[in-house]
């Protein structure tokens, strides 16, 4: 490739082809839509999966596209959750969608402010700083128990019907349709962002920040921007959980939540946006299944599965997928011939 340098139209074509909707993507979303009608009895856990998928997507934006590692993404999740909860309990904004947007915006603002701390230093420093921010916020929420309810959680969150029409029912039907719609819209936006020139410059930054700045990309500016966006995404995910569960607790800030979401992303794979959603799906279903099989020892089994995934390696799974795809491709021309 270095022998024949790409000229501008070639690059443009390459980028465009990357941004094109693939068949598998369309199938993925149709399948997601179908779950609304096909598995109504599983809507409660699917709601949680959609929310966690969105949360993992927010981590993918910074980890997969900008190379910022975070062990404190729950800081934004929890902040968004409490924003939505407080907006509802104090009757400030009763319209769910507007409240969701506001919670997301407020969390993005928090992300913007804290991004300057995260910019400093190496990966190790970032892990510590992000972890620290989450711990601080959790403790603040615990301290101001007059506002947040402290360790008892935020009680009495009542969410008005969606668009004044759809009540959040006990079966989770409204909640799931709503969460899935929000996930889809924000996914589209994320897809647009990562395939835009801005998104491409982010990848350059991730690849080699020094070179990126040498070709005139403002490394810090890009980092701040994506960190802010990702924080907003996490905030919306948290707000969604509060709205659908009508409850918020300190646990939403917990380290376990940050760690879980990182695990989901690692299971699903980083840097292609679907990883978080697929990871959330696998993680949550596996957890639910194991926990109902053995309520006491499910953590042992989930640990075992995670170790197995890491040892076998996703690469090998991807090789397998590649091999299957080749088979299918090989089949196609034969069909044509026949």
């Amino acid at each position, binding site marked *: 490739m270095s022998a024949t340098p790409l000229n501008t139209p070639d690059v443009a074509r390459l980028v465009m082809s990357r941004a094109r909707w693939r068949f598998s993507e369309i199938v993925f979303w149709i399948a997601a839509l179908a779950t609304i009608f096909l598995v109504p009895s599983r809507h*409660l856990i699917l709601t949680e999966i959609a929310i966690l998928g969105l949360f993992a997507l927010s981590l993918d934006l910074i980890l997969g596209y900008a190379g910022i590692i975070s062990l404190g993404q729950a800081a934004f999740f929890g902040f968004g959750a409490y924003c939505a909860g407080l907006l509802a309990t104090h009757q400030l904004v009763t319209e769910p969608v507007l409240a969701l947007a506001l919670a997301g915006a407020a969390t993005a603002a928090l992300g913007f402010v804290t991004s300057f701390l995260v910019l400093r230093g190496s990966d190790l420093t970032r892990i510590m700083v992000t972890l620290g921010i989450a711990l601080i916020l959790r*403790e603040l929420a615990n301290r101001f128990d007059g506002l947040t309810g402290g360790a008892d959680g935020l009680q009495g969150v009542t969410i008005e019907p969606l668009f004044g029409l759809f009540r959040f029912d006990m079966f989770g039907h409204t909640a799931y349709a709503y969460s899935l719609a929000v996930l889809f819209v924000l996914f589209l936006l994320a897809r647009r962002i990562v395939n835009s020139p801005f998104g491409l410059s982010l990848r350059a930054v991730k690849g080699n920040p020094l070179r990126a700045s040498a070709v005139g990309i403002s490394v810090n500016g890009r980092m701040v921007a994506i960190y802010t966006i990702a924080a907003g995404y996490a905030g919306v995910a948290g707000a969604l959980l509060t709205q659908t569960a009508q409850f918020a607790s300190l646990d939403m800030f917990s380290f376990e939540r940050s760690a879980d979401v990182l695990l989901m992303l690692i299971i699903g794979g980083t840097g292609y946006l679907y990883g978080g959603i697929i990871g959330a799906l696998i993680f949550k279903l596996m957890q639910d299944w194991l926990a109902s099989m053995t309520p006491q020892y499910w953590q042992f089994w989930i640990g075992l599965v995670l170790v197995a995934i890491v040892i076998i390696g996703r690469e090998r799974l991807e090789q397998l997928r590649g091999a299957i795809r080749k088979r299918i491709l090989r089949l196609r021309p034969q069909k044509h011939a026949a």
Partner: protein
Amino acid sequence: MMKRILVGLLAATAMAAAGGAWAEEPVKVGLILPMTGGQASTGKQIDAAVRLYMQQHGDTVAGRKIEIILKDDATVPDNTKRLAQELIVNDKVNFIAGFGITPSALAAAPLATEAKVPEIVMAAGTSIITERSPYIARTSFTLAQSSVIIADWAAKNGIKKVVTLVSDYAPGADAQNSFKERFTAAGGQVVEELKVPLASPDFSPVLQRAADAKPDALFVFVPAGQGGTFAKQYSERGLDKAGIKLIGPGDVTDDDILNNMGDSMIGTVTAHFYSATHPSAMNKDFVAAYKKLMNGQRPGFMAVGGYDGIHLIYEALKKTGGKTDGDALIAAMKGMKWESPRGPISIDPDTRDIIQNIYVRRVEKVGGELYNVEFATVEAVKDPIKAAKK
């Protein structure tokens, strides 16, 4: 023709099967407990006690089989809520029960109301819980019940200055406020009020402050299971030798862990509703059976809450003749009285909360093991916080 007969036959069998299924449809109890994480000992005790009760009393009541569906919420309230929702919606449970901590019990309360499913609280101990839904009944205790009794005892036994140390959440606040109110009314003085976080607490700094205040007694509430950590740091700091008496509701000297807490706990005076040495024939049998089931482990007060909780479910079903209408079940529970391993108890018909004896106990060595030995009894104590509201 053949086909038509076959179809008819099939339909008949299907109908018979459906009819049979209705008659034998089990009564489902969704048991939501912390089986993993910091409060796992609570979950394990209640789970064991429920299994024990069903072994002793059979799994059929009023002609209907009882089916327990155990779920682990890992002490995360939004898990509790989702699990309760799934149990009600998908498994169609007739009761939800368990609830290791107050936030979990509160999170499930709106669901109990909406679905008209009785919620049996077997562990959590904040006063307000039963007010959050008309379908909640409790078989554990309220913190205030024990805290006012120990306040009375302290005031009568020459204790003037007290430092309070509680976990920073609703039950802690209940314990501290009820103790302080009763104790200061009796002429005592609370010189310092200390709080520790609920999750992974470090007691060393607060214990130092407590020692510096030089009180006559230290009033302690930590949730069941954290007593071990507390006792370790308490003796490490040498507070057991500083002449400060340790008092509190009985959570800190939970039977489940008491024997491993060390001799520094000897002499601790607590007020609570259950001790494994409670001198009654019923309790002796209960302790023996529990130990047999749990490889020699002693039942703690959480186990008794679970044992009585499942008893309440059995008795309510007997009263309704196996009918599982939520309103009828709750009505059946109101005012119910029975003999528990802890002594005589009843469900308050007004508040659906528990009325029980509170015992004042001192930690002593009995046969080489540490036990809470009861030495005074206050009979039929109602939840003082709700009683004061009237």
